[in-house]
């Protein structure tokens, strides 16, 4: 087992990484698993799996409630994980890290609370055309409730925002009515890395609150919330090697203090009387009920696991896989890549003329290859590109060039069967 205090491993060794993921030994339809669906959920290293079960086996107790030893140990472990996450995203304070069930819950919290705090009839919420449904629908609900309007930044043919740093279109996105900007850092469908820092800076000049969906960014890059300058940043544990059911909403302290609570219940209160309730201090004001303690501890362990590596070296490996996949997939007749931005993470979406993504995904699965098919919870984006869905391969540091080749060969076989 890797010691979490050891030095960062600067030499990237894919076999050393693979050895830490027990699931990679599983056979699917009798064939070795080729797991290329990491943007849906990443696989988990042994350390993370062990951390979750060790919690249940040795210190399971409710947090922030008991005076007994186990409760203290569980609380300490949970708060240590919060501090680990704080350090990872460079937040100023640990209490700026709110644990949620995932990105979806984080954005719902943000939209619901900010809606109540800020939105009035005639106000505008600005999003982009490449958002995941989780960064569309919560804002639609908030807009409906408060009479605000949702405005959308269009997307280019290459899968980038139709605004550039050099022209004034970026500035023109903001009107006197714009209250919130909600944008994805990285597109889950296209892999595009968006220049969010520039847009956030522009939004700030206009006094607009900025919310970032970072679910697809955080597994692949350094995220420094202070450097980005965003007000809120949402992400999930399960896409960054942590368990499912745990996520984070980072929020700037001053804003979180102003935001009303989203859900009420235990642990989020200070004093409750039937006349009036006062709320707990941050972060507990936003953490009603018993949290997913094992998930939080698993998330802390996943972050420590990631920190044992040079994340840039991991990203460079994923980029090599992306370039290889892009080159090889283009040899498939009639294949069109959806999302050709200059800056991409290891995500490649494609359609093949005359081949339905359901058929392709099914025949790849028969060959042991796991990809995602469908609209990827981005129906407006699918409409933008005039497709009903795509097939998407998404890479993790444990993937290999051989696996990319296996996918391309399997795709060619499937196309032959289908045509």
């Amino acid at each position, binding site marked *: 087992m890797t010691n979490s205090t050891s030095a960062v491993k600067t030499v990237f060794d894919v076999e050393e990484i693979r050895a830490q993921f027990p699931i990679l030994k599983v056979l699917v*339809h009798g064939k070795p698993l080729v797991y290329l669906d990491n943007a849906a959920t990443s696989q988990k290293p042994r350390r993370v799996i062990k951390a979750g079960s060790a919690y249940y086996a040795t210190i399971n107790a409710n947090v922030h409630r008991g005076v007994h030893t186990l409760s203290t140990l569980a609380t300490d472990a949970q708060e240590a994980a919060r501090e680990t996450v704080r350090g990872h995203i460079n937040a100023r304070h640990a209490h700026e890290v709110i644990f949620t069930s995932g990105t979806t819950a984080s954005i719902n919290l943000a939209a619901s609370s900010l809606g109540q705090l800020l939105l009035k009839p005639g106000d505008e919420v600005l999003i982009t055309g490449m958002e995941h449904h989780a960064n569309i629908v919560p804002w639609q609900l908030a807009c409906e409730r408060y009479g605000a309007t949702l405005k959308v930044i269009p997307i280019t043919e290459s899968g980038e925002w139709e605004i550039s740093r050099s022209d004034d279109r970026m500035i023109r996105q903001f009107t006197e009515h714009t209250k919130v900007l909600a944008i994805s850092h990285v597109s889950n469908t296209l892999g595009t890395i968006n220049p969010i820092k520039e847009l956030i800076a522009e939004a700030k000049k206009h006094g607009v609150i900025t919310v970032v969906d970072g679910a697809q960014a955080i597994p692949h890059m350094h995220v420094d919330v202070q450097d980005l300058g965003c007000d809120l940043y949402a992400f999930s544990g399960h896409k960054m090697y942590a368990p499912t059911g745990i996520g984070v909403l980072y929020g700037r302290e001053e804003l979180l203090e102003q935001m009303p609570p989203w859900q009420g219940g235990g642990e989020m209160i200070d004093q409750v009387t039937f006349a009036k309730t006062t709320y707990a201090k941050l972060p507990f004001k936003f953490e009603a009920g018993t949290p997913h303690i094992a998930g939080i501890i698993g998330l802390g362990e996943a972050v420590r696991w990631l920190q044992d590596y040079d994340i840039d070296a991991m990203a460079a490996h994923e980029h090599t896989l992306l370039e290889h996949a892009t080159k090889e997939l283009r040899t498939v007749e009639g294949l069109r890549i959806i999302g050709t931005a200059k800056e991409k993470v290891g995500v490649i979406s494609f359609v093949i003329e005359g081949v*339905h*993504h*359901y*058929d392709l*995904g*099914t*025949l790849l699965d*028969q060959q042991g290859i796991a990809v995602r*098919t*469908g*609209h990827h919870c981005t129906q407006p984006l699918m409409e933008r590109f005039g497709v*009903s*869905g795509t097939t998407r391969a998404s890479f993790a540091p444990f993937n290999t060039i051989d696996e990319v080749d296996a996918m391309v060969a399997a795709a060619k076989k499937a196309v032959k*069967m*289908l045509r």
Partner: protein
Amino acid sequence: MMDTTLEQAQQEIVDEFAMLGDWQDRYEQLIELGKELPLIAPEHKTDENLVRGCQSRVWLTAEPVSLLDCARSDTGSSGTTVIHFTADSDAMITKGLVALLVRVLNDRTPEEILGTPLTFIDRIGLREHLSPNRSNGVVAMLDQMKRYALVYSAKT
């Protein structure tokens, strides 16, 4: 009324697939079946006939056919009704599954459709396509076929 029972029709399919070797043969057979499926009339490929599936789409129509119209003397005079289905899908494998379901359930009485457990998809090793995870419209289609059978059994 069909010459074979629904159960016999299922068994025929199981026997056909038993002769096939690996996954590739099974899926090639399914794809061929999909290609053979008589397409639904274009005017019936409407949103109204669309059976919701997330990954692939299925269209289904059902028409009651009274066997008295067919001048079948052996059915008696009570007016036996069978259901005639047409269907299509935008995905080939789904279409193959749709073709199998139509082949088994087509032109049968509502009572036979509702009264015979469908086991063949399981028995030919394609059960995974009925998983809710697939969201391919096949399960929704089967539900819809049974709903039509319920409606027409109530009418007769």
